[in-house]
C-alpha cells in the first residue's frame, strides 16, 4: 500500500467509523423493531417508543462524539495515534466526519424506515400516488422541499458544531489533572455560548444589513440569511477543530 495522505485519511476515517458503527446499528435496529411492532404486529403499547426512534439520531451521535474522544484514553489507542507520523488535523477531521456520517445514516435510516412503514401500512391505500407526485412538483411542494433541505443543512451544521465543541472541550479537560470533568463541562458550555452568540449575532447583522425584507413573503424561506447561518456554523466548527488539533499537536502528552 503506498504511503499517501489519502490512504492515511482513509484508514483514520475507517478507524473512527469502526468505533461508531455499533451505535448506528443500534439506532437502526430500534427503528426497525418499533415500526415492525406497531405497524405489522399492532402492539400499540410500543408506540411511545417512536419518540426514541425519532430523537435518537439527534442524541446518539453526540454520545458517540464524547466516546470517540474518551475511548482513545480508556482503550489506550491514544498511544497509537500519538505514534503516527501525522498531526492532529486529519485525526480530528476524520472524527468529525465519522460523527456526521453516523448522524446522516441514523437520520436517513430512522426517518426513512418510519416513513416507509407509515406509508405502506397507513397511507398507501388512502392517497392517490398521482396526487402526491403532483404535489411534489407544485410550487408549494417545491417550497416545502427547499425548507426541508435547508433545515437539514442547518441541523447538519449544528451537529458538526456540537461535535467539534465536544472535542475541543475534552481536549481542554485533558490539559488539567484535577477537576477534569468540571473543566470539560464548563468549557463545553462556554464554547456553546460563544458559538451561539457568534452565529446568531452575525446572522442577525447580516440579515439587518443585506437582506431585502420587502421581498420576504411568509411561505418563502429566507435562503440568503439561512445560508449565512450555515456558513457561520461551518466556520465556527472549523475554528474549533483547528484549536483541538493545535492542543493535540502542542500540549497533549501521556
Amino acid at each position: 500500500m503506498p504511503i499517501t495522505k489519502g490512504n492515511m485519511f482513509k484508514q483514520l476515517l475507517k478507524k473512527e467509523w469502526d468505533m461508531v458503527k455499533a451505535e448506528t446499528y443500534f439506532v437502526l435496529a430500534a427503528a426497525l423493531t418499533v415500526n415492525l411492532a406497531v405497524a405489522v404486529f399492532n402492539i400499540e403499547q410500543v408506540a411511545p417508543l417512536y419518540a426514541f426512534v425519532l430523537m435518537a439520531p439527534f442524541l446518539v451521535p453526540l454520545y458517540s462524539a464524547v466516546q470517540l474522544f474518551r475511548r482513545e484514553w480508556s482503550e489506550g489507542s491514544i498511544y497509537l495515534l500519538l505514534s503516527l507520523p501525522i498531526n492532529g488535523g486529519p485525526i480530528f477531521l476524520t472524527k468529525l466526519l465519522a460523527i456526521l456520517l453516523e448522524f446522516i445514516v441514523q437520520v436517513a435510516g430512522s426517518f426513512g424506515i418510519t416513513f416507509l412503514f407509515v406509508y405502506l401500512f397507513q397511507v398507501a391505500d388512502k392517497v392517490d400516488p398521482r396526487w402526491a407526485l403532483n404535489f411534489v412538483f407544485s410550487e408549494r411542494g417545491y417550497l416545502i422541499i427547499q425548507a426541508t433541505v435547508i433545515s437539514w443543512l442547518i441541523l447538519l451544521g449544528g451537529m458538526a458544531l456540537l461535535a467539534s465543541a465536544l472535542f475541543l472541550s475534552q481536549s481542554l479537560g485533558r490539559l488539567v489533572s484535577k477537576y477534569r470533568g468540571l473543566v470539560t463541562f464548563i468549557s463545553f458550555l462556554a464554547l456553546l455560548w460563544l458559538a451561539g452568540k457568534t452565529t446568531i449575532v452575525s446572522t442577525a447583522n447580516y440579515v439587518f444589513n443585506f437582506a431585502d425584507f420587502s421581498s420576504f413573503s411568509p411561505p418563502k424561506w429566507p435562503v440568503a440569511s439561512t445560508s449565512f447561518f450555515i456558513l457561520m456554523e461551518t466556520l465556527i466548527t472549523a475554528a474549533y477543530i483547528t484549536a483541538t488539533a493545535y492542543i493535540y499537536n502542542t500540549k497533549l502528552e501521556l
Partner: protein
Amino acid sequence: MIRFEQASKRFGSTLALNNITIALPEGKIIGLFGPNGAGKSTFLKAAAGLVRLSSGEVTVNDKPPRQMRAHLAYLPEQNTLPPTWTIKRAAEFYRAFFADWDEERYHNQMDFLNLREDMKLAQISRGQLAKAQLLLTLARRARYILLDEPFSGIDIMAREEITKALIRDYSEGQQTIVISTHEIDEIENLVEYVVFIDSGQVAVFGDADELRRQEHKSIVAIMKEAFGHANH
C-alpha cells in the same frame, strides 16, 4: 542516536526524570532497568515524543522525537489497539502510515509467534495480545524500537517467544532497540548496553560485557546490588 540533554520531567510534585544527560549508542540493543517508579516509562515516552519535558532536551538523530515518528516504533505496556479490530485490520492500518512496513517480516513473525490474521483483539489472551502488538512493532524495519515492559503479565513460554522474536529480525548496526523491563534475566544475554535508572537519574550506564568483567558479576547481580529493593 537518542540523546538526552539535562532532561527533566515533573508530574505535579513527582520528578520522574531528574536532569538526565545520556546518549544511547546507535545500532545496539539497550536494556533499561530500574525499580518501579524509577522513571523508565517516562524515559521511553520522552524518547518517543509522548511526553513534553519540563526542562532540557531529547533528540532522536538530532531532531525532536515528534519529527522522527516515521522511524520510531514504540510499544507501550498496555494495549494500544481498538479491541474490535482483528490482527489483519491492525496491520492494514499500520501499512498505510509506515513506509518501513515489511510484509514478509510481518507474515514470518506471525507464524513464528503462532498468531493468525483473523484473531480478534478483544477475544485473545493477554499473552497473545502482547505478541500481536509486538508483531506489529517488529513488522516495521524501524530504525529505533522502544519497548516498554514487553514481558509484563506474560507467562514464561510467551516471554521466550517474544525474546526470540526480538532477536530473529534484529538488524545489528541498523536498528537501535531499547527494552525497559523488570525481567532482567530474560534479556540478560540479549542486551549489549545497560542503563540503570533510579529516582529519575541514570545510576549506571555502560557496555554490558564490560560491566560484567569489571564487577565479576552478572547484570542481574549488579542490578541487585545497585538497588537492594529491586525485584530480582
